[in-house]
């Protein structure tokens, strides 16, 4: 197996890509390697969870780090190869490539965050999520993996900035989703498993539990506070680009509308968190809703309606 079934460089159809080129082969192998590494990391984190030992956790961390490197390598390899064929190329030209970029961004961000927060379960859920994402991306039909030539309006450096920023914010939101789901998991487990008397709860789980919850809450919040400006920047560069290309910075196209909706849901999260009644689990649900909105923006809109972004395997 030369890993080519994982390659996004299968533009053989257009004759642009030489399947025997070592860089093309490397591309497929690096995707495969990333998948294997994140899969192994998931296993390591499961072992950590089951045994409570910290060594498998550290192994999992290491594997995630390696996966970040292989996915970065794949991006660079692809870019170096493709840019010689198409000078406008940017390694986000179709759904598969953009998903692989999100994977890289999640892995890199995860590495930084887990160093600081060491939230229990965070590694496991993140690694599992990334493994699932790569597996699904590898199943995409070639139509969504082959890059097509850029339509005229996309030949602009704005679009490169715009798409890159949007995807980075999605990565931050994906991790905030992981933290929020963990929060909700512990919240409800605690709410259902414990006797519903405050005294009894306090006696059984004095500080540990609330410290854990604070940690997950803060992690969710910080990740959203990170994604929020990036998304704002992304939406706005999209507007600048549209204005430059068409003379309209905002046209209520479904994709941009959904990006705005996502931004609004996260704004609602930030403000809900300030209100005493809506802190905690309620705010975490807002964070989950925000990520659902991200998914609709990223993947769902193409099925909803048509608009400017329908060349739109992109973004």
């Amino acid at each position, binding site marked *: 197996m030369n890993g080519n079934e994982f390659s996004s460089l299968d533009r053989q159809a*257009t004759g642009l890509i030489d399947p025997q080129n070592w860089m093309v082969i490397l591309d497929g192998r690096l995707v495969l390697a990333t998948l294997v590494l994140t899969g192994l990391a998931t296993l390591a984190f499961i072992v950590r969870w089951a045994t409570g030992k910290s060594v498998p956790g550290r192994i999992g961390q290491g594997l995630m780090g390696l996966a970040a490197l292989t996915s970065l390598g794949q991006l660079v390899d692809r870019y170096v190869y493709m840019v010689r064929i198409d000078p406008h190329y940017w390694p986000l030209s179709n759904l598969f490539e953009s998903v692989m970029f999100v994977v890289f961004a999640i892995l890199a961000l995860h590495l930084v965050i887990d160093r*600081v*927060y060491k939230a229990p379960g965070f590694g496991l859920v993140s690694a599992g999520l990334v493994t699932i994402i790569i597996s699904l991306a590898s199943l995409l039909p070639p139509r969504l993996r082959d890059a*097509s*030539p850029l*339509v*005229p*309006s996309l*030949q*602009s450096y704005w679009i490169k900035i715009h798409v890159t920023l949007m995807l980075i914010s999605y990565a931050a939101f994906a991790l905030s989703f992981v933290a929020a789901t963990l929060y909700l998991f512990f919240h409800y487990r605690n709410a259902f498993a414990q006797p519903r008397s405050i005294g009894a709860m306090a006696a059984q789980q004095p*500080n540990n539990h*609330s410290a854990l919850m*604070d*940690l997950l809450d*803060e*992690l969710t*919040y*910080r990740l959203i*506070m*990170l994604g*929020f*400006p990036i998304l*704002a*920047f992304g939406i*706005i560069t999209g*507007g*600048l680009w549209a*204005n*430059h*290309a*068409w*003379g*309209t*910075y905002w046209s*209520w196209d*479904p994709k941009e*509308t*959904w990006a*705005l*909706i996502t931004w*609004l*849901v996260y*704004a*609602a999260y930030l*403000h*809900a968190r*300030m*209100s005493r*009644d*809506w802190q905690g689990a309620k705010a975490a649900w807002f964070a989950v809703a925000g990520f659902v*909105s991200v998914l609709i923006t990223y993947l769902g*809109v193409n099925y*909803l*309606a048509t608009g400017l972004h329908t060349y739109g395997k992109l973004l």
Partner: protein
Amino acid sequence: MADGPATPTADEATLLDRDQLAEIRGPEAWVRFRNGFVTFWASIKLAVVLICAIAAASTLGTIVPQGGPEDVLALEEMSLRTREFLISIQAYNVYYSAWYLTLLGLFFLNLAVCTWVRVWPRLRFALARPRDLPIPARDHMPDQLRFADTTANQVAETLRRRGYRVFPAKEGFVADRNRLFRFAAMVVHLGLFMILIGGITAGLTGYKHSFPLLPGESMPARKAFEDARTRGRLTPLPDDFRVRLDKFWTTRYPDGSVKQFYSTLSIVEDDKPVLSRTIKVNEPLEYKGTTYYQSFYGIGAEILTVARGIESRVVLANQASSTKLQGFITQRFTLGKQQVFGYNPGKGDHFEILTFPMLGYVGDAKPGRPLQTNGHSVAVRRVLSRPGVASVRLVIGGKSRTVPVESASRFKMQGYITRQLEFGSRKVFLFVPGPDQPIQIVDLDSIASLGTLAPGAHKAFGGVDVRFAGTDDDPAGGGPVATELVIDGEAQVLRMIELEKTGFRVEGAASDPVEIGGRNVVLMQASEPPGSPLWIMDAREGTALAVMRPGERTDIGITKVRWDGPVWFSGLQTKTDPGLPVIYAGFLIVILGTMMGLFNHEQLWITAQEQGCRVGAKVNRGRFTFRRHLERLFTGQGGELLPQSPNNQGAAA
């Protein structure tokens, strides 16, 4: 109400006249109103509710096509009732509907009040000298450290080296960092306001218009201004100049898809060209505050019509669109080496023979007038039609009536409907799916179905008994189902399919409706492949009246039509937008503000003790990371981080 004057007692009140009373009560009522107003409109919960409402409302426009009511009517997968409802709330134009704009208005009112009441205390706080600020009680300092040996001075020195601002205070020091980042939210909110103001400015003083130009044609700036579909009430009239298209061309990728398109434009003032520039997508031309964008392009057509000796031109150069054709096509068959099919508009028995899949026009065939081409022939022997419905027979309250029906295709439905009928007290119309099928009785006011009637059945509606006796056939009305053609002497029966059902579309350009030969028509032309025929369509019915090849002539009514062939046109968009700088500034400020939110305001209070010192610390967000930061900062200096007690847990809001 501490600051309002005291309400006079009943005794006092009798001593005062009404004016004096009003003077006393007036302000109180005002203060009460003001406080109530501020409390309500500064509420963050209201903000969350409004933000969610706007988000939810915005989803509507991504599901319902934005355009006109007819686009909503065309959503056949929804019930008629849902469609009616969507139309009544202007779901086809959500973002400009009164209720959506009201929602936005309430949101900005909320934002204004809430920012206003918070910005002043915050400013006072930011501008005050740190040592003048009250030191919070220990309970309100979530993180506390104890230093056994290190003195307050040494701790202060460490902080100073780390970039904190350190000020002496009584019994020690106060230190802080990133104080200005407390304004992050205010900055974001300000930016949102600037975007709002820019948007309103654009709405009031801008205009936008897109139009096609054929090479050699020009568009006066003032005409674009007058024709503009969106133009603000206060938009100033542009200077008097014209933009002329000198040349239009495209470049292509090796696989034939368009890579980029270019227009060479000249600005003409007083009939003298003053400026010439080539624009392309992503590279507009700006002249005197008006910007011209390369927006679209297409294949246009110019047809020459002659009626009663008067010549005129009709130009087809609209933005590329995709149009559904109505009518029927036959199965494909071979004519010589060509794959061809017949097109029939659904009425009459003549066929246009077109090549497949290129839609090249081969010729017309009618019964008695076979098509002869290149030694091949096609003759129409007969058309087999499904019977349609001509009328419905009813017995209303004992009286027989025959009610004519009309096709429901106008409403994008299959079947037939009647005009308004009165069933006793009710106004209704009937929906007839087909010959001798149950009919539906629909209330005209509510568009709700009142029930169905099978042939022969009866029921009471509006107090009278209504019997459905049956339908009368319209022999050709149901549309052709098959045709018998004689192809090169050999008879073949070909099935016919309704075009609607095939999803067949002409992708290309369509003109606005124009009148030719007493009929309202649109011109349509497929953009691919080059050399596609020009379709002249009945604007209302969507059927083809003629399919022309370059250089051909045809008659529509008494009008003679000639078409010389396709021409490329360049689609330009022009606009002025004085709000743009404000919007861009707003964008910038929003980005700045949200990025400011990444930094936290850290405050530390250092109190000297007899031995060593104590430090209390607080951060406005991110307590966990802050604690780790403190740990790293001070453990080297012998600082001992005290456990957080439940008392000071919730204090950092």
